[in-house]
């Protein structure tokens, strides 16, 4: 039932992006996300979008698999596209039939919003699909280090984050098992009736929550029995930034600057 979801999945590979330091990738994502949110010019957006697509192909991720996993999000994006297309009344009228009016501003906004959100989603997909969840947690821990000055428990936060990321696939697996066991007792999750659909949730959610809390308690006990203390943790593998990180950093800043100055 939830087999196609790409959330929290890491696809192993040897590409340039796989080898990048996770800190570089997170900074790159954050930087571009902010830029994408503020850009109002479609040509600037297209330049950056092209850069994201190039990054995607460099990462040698399977395009069809990723798009399949994002199909629900793409569906909602298309709804947003259509809403902008038909409900913006500003600009020159391009097409008119009965109550349907498409204006130049409507089309412009529709493409802008679609590209903006799609690029952000693709960026995040590249990050999560080319980086192991534990590496993402490690990178966030490093990025949050300055907050220790304000007594923020960075290590504990990073551990919570890495455990959460680590358990996403486990929870999906468990969810599928729960769904199977309830379906074999006659539960109908694909019933066309809305009431039946709502009624089908408790048999899934209750065992899932109970199991998750049990597991959380077991992990906490297992960690305590091994004398866990957040602040004294060290890492087995230390990832240091290399020349490729510097090169990549220079490239993406340059692309952003070029797109601003050209258009």
């Amino acid at each position, binding site marked *: 039932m939830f087999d196609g979801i790409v959330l929290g999945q890491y696809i192993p590979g040897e590409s340039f992006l796989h080898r990048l330091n996770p800190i570089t990738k997170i900074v790159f994502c954050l930087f571009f996300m902010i830029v994408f949110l503020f850009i109002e010019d479609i040509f600037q957006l297209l330049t950056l979008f092209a850069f994201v697509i190039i990054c995607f192909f460099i990462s040698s991720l399977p395009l069809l698999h990723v798009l399949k996993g994002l199909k629900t999000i793409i569906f909602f994006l298309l709804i947003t596209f259509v809403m902008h297309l038909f409900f913006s009344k500003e600009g020159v009228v391009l097409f008119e039939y009965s109550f349907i009016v498409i204006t130049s501003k409507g089309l412009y906004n529709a493409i802008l919003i679609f590209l903006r959100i799609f690029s952000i989603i693709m960026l995040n997909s590249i990050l999560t699909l080319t980086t192991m969840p534990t590496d993402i947690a490690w990178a966030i821990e490093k990025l949050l280090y300055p907050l220790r000055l304000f007594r923020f428990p960075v290590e504990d936060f990073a551990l919570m984050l890495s455990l959460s990321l680590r358990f996403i696939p486990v929870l999906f697996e468990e969810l599928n098992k729960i769904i199977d*066991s309830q*379906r074999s007792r*006659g539960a109908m999750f694909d019933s066309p009736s809305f009431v039946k659909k709502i009624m089908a949730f408790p048999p899934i959610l209750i065992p899932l929550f109970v199991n998750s809390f049990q597991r959380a308690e077991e992990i906490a006990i297992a960690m305590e029995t091994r004398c866990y203390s957040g602040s004294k943790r060290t890492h087995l593998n230390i990832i240091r930034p290399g020349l490729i990180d510097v090169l990549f950093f220079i490239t993406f800043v340059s692309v952003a600057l070029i797109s601003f100055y050209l258009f």
Partner: protein
Amino acid sequence: MIVNDTNIKVDSVSFTYNNGSIFQKQALQDISFEINNKDILGICGNTGSGKSTLIRLLNRLIKPDSGFVKINDVDLSEIKDPMEIRRKVGIIFQYPDNQLFESSVKKELVYGPLNFGFKKREALSQARDSLNRTGLDYHKYKNRNPFSLSGGEKRKVAIASILSSRPEVIIFDEPTAGLDSNSRDNLIELIFSLKKEGRMIIIISHDSRFIDKVCDKLLVLSKSKQVYFGDREEFFSRFDKSTIDDVGIELPFEYKVLRADREKNSIKKIKEFINKKHV
């Protein structure tokens, strides 16, 4: 209730998870066997050999990529309403925690029967009978919260919650895991009484002693392929020992003795033969 003849035919069934994606994984390759309710079938194999996938196919929780599964000569893929199949085939999964969700044992037990369209009174009487059969007193347990029960009690409630739907085929997934020896003996008794009623029993287990005690036929899977299907005794007494070790089954003690005896006798015979030649 006595169930009439039931048979299951699995013919050249293959199944791959996430077919067509980069995460695709072949779970079953060309599996074929036929069984009726006169025999109890045991399914053995290493972890990841495809046992759980096979039982999911029997309940049509998934459909085979190729081949067919027939119950009483009806191809499951031709049945439009999967509820019809699930009413006939009940699976008792390994972890009862994955199914318990109601606030009382009674509600948990009637969840299946009510979904399958039994009337409330009928569902309640079946729930009472089923729980009593597992060895838990219905009146003592009916209002208890399933989450407050011990592991063994939860398993019994899970078994009863399937039995209460009166399925013709009952599949047990690792039924002895976490059971003490008394509960194990009770379970064996229950399985035999279900067989006597004419219900078809299929058991997935790593416990070779349990399999040896209960099953008549054996299906052995390894790396998604069928290694053996046939008589249980034949497998334990004659099948190649290294293959038995490879599929993660420990030979029951009696068969170890039997094989050792046979080996001793053959060595004795060889020695006699050599001696005769020398003489």
